[in-house]
């Protein structure tokens, strides 16, 4: 044997080949992938490629319609909407991604432990989940923000909290069906401790549906961030953020200045769509049974 058959290089090559195969099989995945890369590119480089300073107001150019200079038009204080939409990408993505990572980690681990060990751990987790689910989630988020104050950290934690139940429930259900699987008994025979069985044998096999959930959830988290900002409980103006921009622009819709709310809204819609499409693509990618 030249190299250990399960080396990291081998697995990586296999994953890459598999990824190419899937992209060819489902062109929509390719669209989603390209869109996600563009959004990531904008998030990383946006502030250096925009034509105008997103915060600089210009009293001579208020509420101008889209033109060759201002592609997306200007807002009520003369700021360039294109620049603001692009620069806002980083903040919106960062807040939702942190919230999703946080609730994914906490929810899946708590749910997996509850499903695997049962007993008081399962009872406590279930009660917490039920309690959170008893509230209309967005109203709960509003309540938490009002109580703890609108800082960036609080917004992230709040959105993580309202997403916690979906991960916890799903992880618990996925672990439950695998708890008695043959390979779990076999792992016990091979001398694995319960913690090790959960961490190495059960939990990784529960990941595919959770990852799909996370990607779908990412879009929903972005809507929550924008929603909180829209009602004034999220990011503070004048920071460029899609929710705030839609909120500010909405006032001018009636008078015909549609662009101030339309473009940030479009960006938000496209971002949510991207992550939903990506969820489907990811499901195929992480499911080992679809690997050929």
């Amino acid at each position, binding site marked *: *044997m030249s190299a*250990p*058959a*399960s080396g990291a290089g*081998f697995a990586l090559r296999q994953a890459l080949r598999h990824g190419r195969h899937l992209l060819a099989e489902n062109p929509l995945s390719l669209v989603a992938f390209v869109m996600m890369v563009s959004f990531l590119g904008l998030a990383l480089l946006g502030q250096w490629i925009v034509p105008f300073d997103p915060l600089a107001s210009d009293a001579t150019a208020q509420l101008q319609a889209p033109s060759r200079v201002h592609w997306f038009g200007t807002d009520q204080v003369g700021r360039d909407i294109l620049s603001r939409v692009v620069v806002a990408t980083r903040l919106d993505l960062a807040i939702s991604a942190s919230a999703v990572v946080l609730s994914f980690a906490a929810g899946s681990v708590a749910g997996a432990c509850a499903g695997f060990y049962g007993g008081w751990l399962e009872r406590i987790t279930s009660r917490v989940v039920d309690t959170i689910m008893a509230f209309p989630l967005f109203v709960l988020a509003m309540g938490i923000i009002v109580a703890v104050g609108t800082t960036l950290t609080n917004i992230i934690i709040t959105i993580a909290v309202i997403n916690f139940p979906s991960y916890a429930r799903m992880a618990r259900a996925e672990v439950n069906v695998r708890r008695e*699987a*043959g*390979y779990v*008994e*076999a*792992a*016990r*025979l*091979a*001398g*694995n*401790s*319960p913690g090790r069985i959960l961490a190495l*044998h059960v939990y*990784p*096999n529960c990941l595919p549906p959770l990852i799909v959930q996370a990607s779908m959830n990412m879009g929903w988290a972005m809507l929550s961030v924008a929603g909180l900002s829209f009602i004034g409980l999220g990011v503070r103006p004048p920071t460029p953020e899609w929710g705030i921009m839609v909120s500010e622009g909405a006032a001018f819709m009636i008078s015909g200045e549609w662009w101030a709310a339309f473009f940030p809204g479009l960006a938000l819609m496209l971002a949510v769509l991207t992550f939903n499409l990506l969820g489907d693509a990811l499901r195929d990618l992480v499911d*080992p*049974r679809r*690997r050929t």
Partner: protein
Amino acid sequence: MSGPLLAVREARKRFPVRGTRRWVHAVDGVNFTIEAGECLGLVGESGCGKSTLVRLVARLLEPTAGQILLDGQEIGSVPVTEFARGPLRAAIQMVFQDPADSLNPRFTAFDTIADPLARLGGVKDRRTQAERVAAVADLVRLPDELLGRLPHQLSGGQQQRVGIARAIALSPKLLILDEPTSALDVSVQAVILHLLVELRERLGMTYLFVSHDLNLVRLISDRVLVMYSGVIVESGPAGEVFTHPYHPYTRALISAIPVADPGGRRERIRLIGEPQSPVDPRPTVCRFYGRCPERFDRCLREMPALRAMGTSHEVACHRYEGGSR
């Protein structure tokens, strides 16, 4: 050492019935021994408690009562998780019925075989692991190039070879085979069975072979236990049990073996009537009463115990009181 390799004494396992205060008596006072080097067959219909019994012996389940002795040492009272860390874990291993279900879908064949080596054998160094895994793969004739594959990339026979390799990686004293061929194609069954027979000779292992396929058991076992509804109804040397069965249940089972003899006249004993529920069975009634063609009133008053019917043949039936037909 003169005693048996494994002795099971009055082993019992009950499971609660959800939502009630009743119990399923899956294994109800079972006694048997396995001598070192022999192959003991365990037969019985599905749901009779075979799988529960072998999981008690394999220390995957806690017995409700009774003793399990390995080389004279009591292991039945050691908690399952503690046993998994103990030095005797490597001595009892198991091959599962469904190879697809018993292999972790995210572990390559290599990782699966290396798992017991690393956890119980202390082989953590990657290079030594590779050597040991290659040696075991060679024993079960699993080609080296398949070691990097995931379970779904292997055929059923190859999957089961991985399962066997994992079980024998640490040369267990007792290997439990829980219907190891019943999920495989017929052509593959024979190959795997030959492999198992050969491995037993080469490695000097002791087998506890569970099956509902009587022909297989007859082929591979030295001794046979017949189980019905949580109790053992007959035990003895394989040849004798198959040629001179005593218990009505064993006789019915054996009469149901298909034979390739279209002209031969054989009497098929058909079992009619309702089997007794394993939920809180009445302790004074023979478990086979409801379906037994030879039942009489004593079978309702007293549960028959195993009685010797010769040197090593035992049967639990009131019909054979006094040791003869």
